[in-house]
């Protein structure tokens, strides 16, 4: 087990370093000049040169790359070229927003997804199953931005039940914080809820058809008890893995959701930084997102090997 975990951690580190290289050179391959994006209308050759020198963009690429590596190691991610604010500070203020949003979205998705999946299994061949399948299909196929706009128009503008934008820190004012995050979290959680619905339905059908469930029912256990104790419990193993793998998708989905609801999160920060060619911010944010992907995958791999030791054995053997 220790060898397996150490190997996985080593792989994660290698992936992170390679990602760093790709991010650095990938950002520099973007068309457009950050100095020009910064100077905008008032761009004069002298001002552009001054900005380039200030940002170190007049240095050879390899020098810039070495500085980038040095900065990562020392934890100094530099300043935003557009606003002059410290990048670490920008990430520190935006990351919690995305984390709260993602956590809330997962909770919504798990509750809605498992409920709908169980309903589908319980009423197989009847209209509740059709309804559940239809909702799952909608959730998978309707894009976030469209659903978000509809939600804003319907629930914020017409009915006025939720705010159309804004964010309140969840820790300083939990009730208002949750209220402000509800609409975005529901929108962000929709596609994950759809995936969970389908997965729950499929694994419940499988579990409920097994011999031990038939045995449990033959023993006279009530249907709800069989459903929760044997059906759902066994399905959860698969669900944990699915949810883990979908977390990365949530972070990228947050880019769109945060933009629509003007939430001050990492997603919005990334998108705006790309548009203004803010190299230090793009690099830092993409690194943070990459690191979280890698960590989530590492955790899922380890968790999965704990749940299903066969995985560990087969990988060790290979």
């Amino acid at each position: 087990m220790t060898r397996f975990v150490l190997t996985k951690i080593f792989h994660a580190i290698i992936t992170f370093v390679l990602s760093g290289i790709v991010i650095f050179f990938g950002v520099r391959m973007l068309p457009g000049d950050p100095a020009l994006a910064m100077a905008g209308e008032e761009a004069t050759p002298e001002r552009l040169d001054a900005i380039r020198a200030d940002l170190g963009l007049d240095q050879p690429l390899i020098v810039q790359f070495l500085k980038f590596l040095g900065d990562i190691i020392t934890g100094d991610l530099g300043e935003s070229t557009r606003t002059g604010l410290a990048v670490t500070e920008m990430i520190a203020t935006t990351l919690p927003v995305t984390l709260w949003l993602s956590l809330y979205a997962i909770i919504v998705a798990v509750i809605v997804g498992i409920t709908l999946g169980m309903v589908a299994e319980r009423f197989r061949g009847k209209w509740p199953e059709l309804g559940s399948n239809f909702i799952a299909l909608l959730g998978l196929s309707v894009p976030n931005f469209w659903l978000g706009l509809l939600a804003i128009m319907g629930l914020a503008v017409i009915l006025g039940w939720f705010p159309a934008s804004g964010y309140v820190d969840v820790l300083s004012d939990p009730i208002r914080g949750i209220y402000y995050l509800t609409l975005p979290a529901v929108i962000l959680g929709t596609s994950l809820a759809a995936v969970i619905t389908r997965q729950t339905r499929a694994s419940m059908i499988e579990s409920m058809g097994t011999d031990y469930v038939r045995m449990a029912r033959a023993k006279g256990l009530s249907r709800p008890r069989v459903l929760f104790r044997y059906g759902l419990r066994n399905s959860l193993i698969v669900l944990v893995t699915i949810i883990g793998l979908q977390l990365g998708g949530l972070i990228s989905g947050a880019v769109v959701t945060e933009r629509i609801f003007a939430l001050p999160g990492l997603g919005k920060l990334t998108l705006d930084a790309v548009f203004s060619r803010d190299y230090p911010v793009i690099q830092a944010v993409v690194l943070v997102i990459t690191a979280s992907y890698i960590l989530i995958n590492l955790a899922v791999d380890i968790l999965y090997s704990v749940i299903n030791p066969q995985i560990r054995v087969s990988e060790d053997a290979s």
Partner: protein
Amino acid sequence: MKKRITAVLASVVLMAGCTPVQPLGEPPERPDVKSVNADPGAFEDGGDLVMALSSEPDRLDPTTSSSLYTRYVMQTMCQKLYDIDANGDITPMLATALPDISEDGKTVRIPVKDGVRFADGTDFDAEAVKTTIERGLNLEESSRSAELGPINDVTAVDDHTLEVTFDEPFAPFTAALADRAGMIMSPTALDKAGENFGDHPVCVGPFKFEKRIAQTSIKVVKDANYYDADKVHLDSITYQIMSDANIRAANIRSGDVQVADTISPQDVDALKEESGIGILQSNSLGYQGLTVNLGFGDNPENFETPLGQDPKVRKALSMAIDRKALVNTVFNGWFSPACSGISPDSPFATAASNACVDYDPEAAKKLLEDAGVDLPLKVNMKVSNTQDTLRFAQAVQAATKEAGFDITVQPMEYTALLDAQDRGDYELLQLGWSGRVDPHGNLYTFHYPGAGNNVTGVDDDKLSNLLTRASEATDMDERKKLYGEASQRTGELNSIIYLYRQKNLTAFTDNVSGIDVFSDGVVHLSEAGFLKKDAQ
């Protein structure tokens, strides 16, 4: 029967999809509405007003800032020596009168206010003005140095009089002081913060800087040190960055924000009809146009073309565009045609600068034939990939076919387009300019050889001479005449083919008042406030 109904329905859908774009009739009259102002007694003091900003301001430093949106935020925190009024005329703000200019035009004296304090409690005086202007001239990263002109020396004659001497007369100086170059910064704060002044700007203003959350919001709070604090109604203003026009419109509708800038012409008619929402509209001092590469950059393929080399071909392109019809069709008549770099709303506008080339596709085609080019003439046009710009570019593409042009539209992301322009990597390109109060800022930098924004490579002695004389003349009528002649010359050279002028469209909810949007496009919220219930 079922098949027949399906066929009919399908035809209807197809026909609806294929309906040609028809030019609209004359748009309704849309007179400017630049302000909404209630009686002083109608205001409910206090509260936080939220304004949706369409783009993130850059550094909050008047010396280095280059974003239009920074002006929105700065104007509540950093008052200028001068400002413009609803008519576009320059009026004193922190100065007490318009500058006193010597007869040779080389010495300018500016009297400044007494009894004024910066947000940090220190005194505002001529020495502080001198510090600010010198920073604008000397800071390496300054965006202001060119705007300030050929300054020789800056002196604080006494506490309340500043004297600036120039190597050559420079008439646009006063207008520059009505923009960011004239925002006076606290010398104490500058000493403390240096280049990082923008992290926590300190100036004279109704509001002072409170906090900034990157890419998200900027908050300013009422400044107790402000000399005219009685006129300030709000406790604070939060500028919330919302780059999507639909989202800004939705937030105005829901009441989550009270003011929103840059409303799309596609949304404005619907918003105008809704109760509880008002629209401010003012013509822009800027323009949108086609930039032609006449010889700029390293790639001759971009300019050794009939368009780049022959003024007749450029004139043909200008004549082939029915500006009025296109603007009406694409922007629902909200924007207006443009044929020069001087807005008809500018105090410098004359019949000569307002004159427009006739739309005449037949004559345009004849010009092309005279120029001896093979028809249709293939032209590559780079444009920004925003929805409104693409619609306009496609309309230009379709409209110029008749005159013999075959334009390929190449959409690019805005930053990449700016880069292509700066490197001269284009044949024809569509971009605009947000506009300056003084025509110098709209013409000289684009048409004078080697000037900062001369990305077309135009080099014309007659035009250069007119622009130099206009910047050195001190008499208003003389300047108007010279800029009129310069506009005529730009219309002959067509290095920039002026197309249309946007309107500054700002939406507000009717529970607030005291908002102004003048022709420089800046939304003024300094005297804004919430209204009492019975006043709404």
